[in-house]
């Protein structure tokens, strides 16, 4: 199988800092690879290597079949880059920014203008097309930046934290654009600190921490693999919580955690649920709430890194989509 992005053993050091300590990545053509990690994980460094801006100290990488070091020029012809910080020429208008890139990519003047108009319209910047980019808001700059990365119709698009600083409306619009591009068979590598973003957009996720990939898989696989399932039980009578905890520990073999009036435990084998239900029934404990669900990426991240992911606290909780049959008593 050929990959649109393939990296093996990427290492990058900055003086004492090891930004990347041997990173392997791969993305199949026409899919979204989410690079998920907290601040300083090495996401930007990995992107900069893949877009030929930085040479790895060790390891190799191919984009669109071209080696990013030895065939950098050909690789560049395949890629589009939207960096972590909007890279637009503020002294040019939005249209001029895009025309410049079109011209650099070999479009004729009329073609470059037409392409600029088309992209500005697509990104809701048509009205601001003739204004200097320095008068743009942060969100408008980011959209212009994204438009700039699409002028050359790249086969592989790199988006470094593309939704940071966007309002929810713009964020949704960007997600839609990513989906459209993928439908056109573009491969997208997207870095993010937001679990829900990776969950929604990515076909595959690589979790990066301290310059290493600590887990890979589809969002579903990741959720199943680490911690697997989560069992939550709330007794109707709160004073019987201790009893519930005891039962769960006995059956599962690990200590459940307390979350308000809720006993929460990671579960690998769903068969424990009927066992617990039966024991509780025997003891006459009525569960007001009992659910088995796949762990959220949040919990996956916590399990993998021992830390909560950035933004996890501020992001509103998503309603669980993966709730299994409630096994109510």
């Amino acid at each position, binding site marked *: 199988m050929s990959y649109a992005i393939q990296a093996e053993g990427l290492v990058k050091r900055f003086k004492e800092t090891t930004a990347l300590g041997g990173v392997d990545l791969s993305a199949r053509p026409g899919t979204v690879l989410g690079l998920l990690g907290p601040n300083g994980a090495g996401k930007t460094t990995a992107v900069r290597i893949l877009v030929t801006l930085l040479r790895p100290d060790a390891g190799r990488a191919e984009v669109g079949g071209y080696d990013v070091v030895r065939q950098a*020029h050909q690789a560049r012809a395949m890629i589009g880059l939207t960096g972590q910080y909007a890279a637009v020429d503020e002294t*040019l208008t939005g249209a001029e920014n895009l025309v410049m890139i079109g011209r*650099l990519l070999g479009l004729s003047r009329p073609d470059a203008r037409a392409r600029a108009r088309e992209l500005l319209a697509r990104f809701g910047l048509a009205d601001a097309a003739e204004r200097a980019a320095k008068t743009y808001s942060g969100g408008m700059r980011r959209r212009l930046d994204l438009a*700039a990365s699409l002028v*050359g119709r790249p086969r592989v698009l790199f988006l470094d934290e593309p939704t940071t600083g966007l309002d929810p409306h713009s964020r949704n619009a960007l997600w839609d654009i990513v989906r459209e591009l993928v439908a056109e068979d573009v491969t997208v590598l997207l870095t993010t600190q937001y679990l829900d973003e990776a969950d929604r957009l990515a076909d595959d996720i690589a979790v990066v921490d301290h310059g290493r990939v600590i887990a890979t898989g589809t969002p579903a696989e990741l959720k199943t693999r680490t911690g697997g399932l989560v069992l939550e039980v709330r007794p109707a009578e709160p004073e019987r919580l201790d009893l519930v905890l005891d039962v769960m520990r006995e059956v599962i073999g690990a200590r459940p955690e307390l979350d308000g009036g809720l006993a929460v435990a990671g579960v690998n084998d769903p068969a424990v649920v009927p066992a617990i239900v039966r024991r509780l029934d025997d003891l006459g404990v009525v569960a007001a709430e009992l659910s088995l669900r796949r762990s959220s990426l949040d919990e996956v991240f916590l399990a993998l890194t021992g830390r909560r992911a950035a933004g996890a606290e501020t992001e509103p909780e998503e309603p669980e989509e993966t709730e299994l049959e409630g096994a109510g008593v």
Partner: protein
Amino acid sequence: MSAVTASRRVGPLDTARHTMTLAWRGLVQIKHNPMELLDLSVQPIMFVLLFTYVFGGAIAGSPGEFLQWALPGIIVQNALFATLATAVGLNVDVEKGVFDRLRSLPIARTAPLTGRVLADLAKQVWSLALVLAIGLALGFRIQTGIGGVLASAALLIVVALAMSWMSVLIGLAASSVEKVQIFAFSLMLPLTFTSSAFVDIRTMPGPLATWAEVNPVTYLSDAIRGLLLGGPVAAPATRALLWSAAIAVVCAPLAVRAFRRRA
């Protein structure tokens, strides 16, 4: 884009096209940045007016006489300051990420540098013409002819090109625009003042005069003076060019290294 995919490297024709596109960009920038226009136009005019009317009487007895002698020096100072625009512009590009964007495109590696240098040269010619025009309006009289003016312009452009290596180096190595400006100012101001640009260096105290004699700005000013007013040209022009070559030889490899390090 399939058109670019096929090629392994950039041919000379494409390199020229990329350079022209980025030079165009450097010039279009002026349209939206009135401050730069101010820099480009008001500063030269101000130099000429201030030097002529503030120092003229004190230094040469009358503004008119001073202008006739000092305008070549003002032209040189103006040209040297103008080369620093390259450093500022490049540094802004690096800071804003525009430089990275350009380097991620399948274009000639050097185009982001050469495009900017080319645009800055065009600005250089503009401000030279402006200084000369305002000088002429205030009473400066060229003693040689159009050939002398063209030769002056050519010499200044060659020197400016050499200096732009230094500018590129500063622009790529400095961590912020403020540092570029501080560095540029504290380098250029003493350099241009400890020369024959505005005054007769024989009036300077011993060690300073010794330095002023070998100061490249002195050679350049003397050469331009010779070209516009008549007098020896070959010796000062040769030395000015040797200095430029030396600056380029030292700065070019360092600039290339800084460029690679950004890579």
